[in-house]
C-alpha cells in the first residue's frame, strides 16, 4: 500500500509545481502583455495633450497664447458625390477643387482636408451639411501682437514626430518649460462601446506648460518697434535693431529689429528672418566701443579726464598704416574728455598704447567681450577674442576705437551698462519669473557677473559721456533738460580684406538719466543710405525713444 500512496503523492506534487510554473509564466513573464490585452478588451488608451504655457509681458498680457482651431477631415467612403462636394468646399477652404476632389477619391476612411481653420470657416462648412465631413479640435499658437517682438519670442512649429516644438527666441530656449507633459489615460467602455468611467489610469496625467512672465514692457516694446521701423524707412537702411535694458538688474525691457517676421505665418518668411540679430550677428562696433577702452585706462589710473594726448596733432603711423580721425580734423594736446567728445581715433590710439595689449585684453574679458552674455534666448553667438599671440600693434590701435574687433549688439549693450551701473556687469535676462500650472511663481533674481571698473571710474566716465552728448557731433539731437550719457558710432564694414568707404553700421549707445540710470539703450542701423553717420541716423532715433521713455516713466528734467 505504501508505494501506491507515494506514487499518488508524487503525482500531486508534480501537478502542483506544474500549476505553479504556469501561473508564474502568466503572472510574471507575460504579465504586461496579458494586462494590455485585457485592457484593450474593456478600454482604450487616450492621449491627453497639455496646453502650452503662455508668454506674458510685465503687465500680464499674453503675447503668446493658445487659440482653438479646427482640422477639417473627411471619410471618403461616406462621400456620395465627390465632385459636387469638392466644388462646394473649394471656395470655403480656399483650396483648389481638383486637390479636394483627389483627396475625397482616396480609398481611405480618414483624410485631412485642411488644418487649423478658424471658427467662422468651421461654422460655414457645418451649415453646408456635407456628408462624411467632420472637424477635430486643435490648439495652435496665437500671437495677439502679430510681429511685435517676433524675433524675441520665436515661434512654434513641428518636430520630426509632428508634435509642437518651439524654435528660436523664448519659444525655443524655454521649450521644455512651455510645452508641459503629455498624459496617457485609459477610458473604460461597456459592451456597446459607451464609456463607463471617464478615466481609469491617471498615473501619467498631463501637466500643462508653465507660463513665462517677462521683463519686457509691452508699451516700451511697441514704441521701440515703431521707431526702428520708421528709422529704417526714413534713413534707407538695410535693417535696424535696438534693445533697452535696465542696467541695475540686467532686465531686458524691449528688443526690436526690422525687418522682422510674423510668427503666425512664419512659413511665409525666409529662415534668415527668424534670427534675432541682436544676439546672433557680429559687427565691428566703431566709436561706441571707445568708452570701454577709456574706462579701462581710467580705472588703471593711467589717465585722467584732463590728461593731454601727445600724439593727436596729425595721423598716427603704426606698423606701415596711418590712423586718421573720422573727419581728418586734429586737436593737438586734446584732453581725454575731448577725445570722447570729438570721437578722436588718434586720441584712442594714445589710450590704447598707454593701456597695452595685456591689460586691454584683460579688461575686454572682464567686460564680457568675446563671451556669451548668458541671455535666456536661443541662438546667442559669441565671436570670441583673437588669441594673444595673434595681436599686432596695429590691432591694439584699431581695437581701441572699435575696429578690427567683433562683438554682438547684446555684448556691447551689456558691457556698456557697466558704466551705468556703478562698474558692475549684470547678466542680461528676458524672463522675470516662471509660473507653474498650480499658480506658484518662481522668481528669477538678477545676477551680477563681474565688476570690471570701480564705481568712481564709472562716475567719471558717465560725466565724459554726458559731455559727449552735450558737445559732440550728435548734440543737435539731444534732449534739453536731461543729462543723458551716450556715444555715437559709425563703423566701417570689412569687405574682402578692406573697409567699404560708402557703407557703414551707424549706431548710438547711451543711458538716461545719467545721475540715476533707468535704462540703457543701443540703436543700430545697418548700411543707412540717407546718411552714413551714426550721429545723423541712430542718434535722433535714440533721443526720440529716450524722450518718450522719460515721459512714460514720469522722470522730470533735472535742469
Amino acid at each position: 500500500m505504501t508505494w501506491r500512496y507515494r506514487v499518488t503523492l508524487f503525482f500531486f506534487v508534480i501537478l502542483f509545481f506544474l500549476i505553479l510554473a504556469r501561473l508564474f509564466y502568466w503572472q510574471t513573464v507575460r504579465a504586461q502583455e496579458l494586462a494590455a490585452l485585457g485592457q484593450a478588451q474593456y478600454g482604450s488608451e487616450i492621449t491627453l495633450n497639455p496646453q502650452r504655457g503662455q508668454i506674458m509681458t510685465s503687465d500680464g498680457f499674453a503675447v503668446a497664447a493658445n487659440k482653438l482651431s479646427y482640422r477639417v477631415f473627411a471619410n471618403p467612403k461616406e462621400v456620395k458625390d465627390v465632385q459636387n462636394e469638392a466644388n462646394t468646399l473649394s471656395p470655403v477652404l480656399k483650396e483648389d477643387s481638383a486637390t479636394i476632389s483627389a483627396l475625397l477619391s482616396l480609398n481611405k476612411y480618414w483624410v485631412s482636408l485642411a488644418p487649423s481653420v478658424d471658427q467662422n470657416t468651421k461654422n460655414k462648412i457645418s451649415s453646408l451639411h456635407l456628408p462624411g465631413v467632420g472637424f477635430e479640435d486643435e490648439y495652435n499658437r496665437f500671437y495677439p501682437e502679430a510681429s511685435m517682438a517676433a524675433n524675441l519670442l520665436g515661434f512654434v512649429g513641428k518636430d520630426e514626430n509632428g508634435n509642437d516644438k518651439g524654435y528660436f527666441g523664448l519659444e525655443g530656449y524655454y521649450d521644455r518649460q512651455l510645452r508641459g507633459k503629455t498624459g496617457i489615460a485609459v477610458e473604460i467602455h461597456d459592451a456597446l462601446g459607451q464609456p463607463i468611467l471617464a478615466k481609469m489610469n491617471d498615473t501619467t496625467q498631463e501637466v500643462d506648460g508653465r507660463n513665462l512672465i517677462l521683463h519686457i514692457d509691452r508699451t516700451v516694446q511697441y514704441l521701440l518697434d515703431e521707431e526702428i521701423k520708421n528709422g529704417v524707412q526714413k534713413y534707407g537702411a538695410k535693417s535696424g535693431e535696438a534693445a533697452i535694458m535696465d542696467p541695475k538688474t540686467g532686465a531686458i525691457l524691449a528688443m526690436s529689429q526690422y525687418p522682422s517676421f510674423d510668427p503666425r505665418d512664419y512659413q511665409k518668411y525666409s529662415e534668415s528672418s527668424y534670427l534675432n540679430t541682436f544676439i546672433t550677428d557680429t559687427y565691428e562696433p566703431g566709436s561706441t566701443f571707445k568708452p570701454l577702452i577709456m574706462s579701462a585706462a581710467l580705472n588703471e589710473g593711467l589717465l585722467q579726464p584732463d590728461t593731454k594726448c601727445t600724439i593727436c596733432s596729425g595721423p598716427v603711423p603704426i606698423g606701415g598704416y596711418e590712423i586718421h580721425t573720422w573727419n581728418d580734423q586734429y586737436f593737438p594736446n586734446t584732453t581725454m574728455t575731448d577725445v570722447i567728445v570729438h570721437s578722436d581715433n588718434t586720441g584712442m590710439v594714445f589710450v590704447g598704447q598707454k593701456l597695452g595689449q595685456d591689460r586691454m585684453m584683460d579688461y575686454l574679458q572682464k567686460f564680457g567681450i568675446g563671451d556669451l552674455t548668458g541671455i535666456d534666448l536661443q541662438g546667442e553667438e559669441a565671436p570670441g577674442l583673437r588669441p594673444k599671440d595673434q595681436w599686432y600693434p596695429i590691432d591694439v590701435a584699431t581695437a581701441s576705437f572699435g575696429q578690427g574687433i567683433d562683438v554682438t549688439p547684446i555684448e556691447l549693450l551689456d558691457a556698456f551698462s557697466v558704466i551705468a551701473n556703478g562698474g558692475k556687469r549684470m547678466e542680461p535676462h528676458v524672463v522675470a519669473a516662471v509660473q507653474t500650472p498650480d499658480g506658484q511663481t518662481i522668481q528669477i533674481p538678477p545676477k551680477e557677473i563681474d565688476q570690471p571698473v570701480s564705481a568712481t571710474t564709472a562716475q567719471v566716465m558717465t560725466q565724459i559721456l554726458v559731455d559727449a552728448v552735450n558737445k559732440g557731433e550728435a548734440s543737435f539731437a539731444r534732449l534739453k533738460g536731461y543729462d543723458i550719457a551716450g556715444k555715437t558710432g559709425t563703423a566701417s564694414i570689412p569687405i574682402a580684406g578692406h573697409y567699404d568707404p560708402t557703407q557703414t553700421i551707424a549706431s548710438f549707445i547711451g543711458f538716461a538719466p545719467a545721475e540715476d540710470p533707468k535704462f540703457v539703450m543701443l540703436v543700430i542701423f545697418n548700411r543707412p543710405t540717407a546718411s552714413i553717420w551714426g550721429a545723423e541716423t541712430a542718434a535722433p532715433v535714440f533721443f526720440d525713444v529716450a524722450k518718450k521713455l522719460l515721459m512714460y516713466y514720469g522722470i522730470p528734467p533735472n535742469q
Partner: protein
Amino acid sequence: MKKPIVLLIFLFLIILGLALVQIGLSNKIATTGEQLTALQNEIDVYKKENTILNQKLLSASSLTTIAAKAKKLGFVDDNTQIDLSAPLPLALRQ
C-alpha cells in the same frame, strides 16, 4: 427538533437587503459613466469657450489693434511735455 425560524427570517432579510443594495449600486454605477462623460464634455465646452473668449480679449486689447483703431478715429501722438519748474528758494531773492 425546532426550526430556527427567526434565524432563517433574519438571513432572508439580509439576503434581500444586500440584493436590493446591489441592484441600487449597480444602477447608480451604470449611469455614473454617462454622467461623468457629460460632466467632462461640459468641462471641455467651458475650456473651449474660455480659450475663444481669451483669444477675443487678447485680440481686442492688443496695442497693435488699439493703435490701428486710434489712428482710424483720428488720434495722434501726444509729444507735448510741460515742465513745472520748482520755485526758487527764498534766500536767492535778495
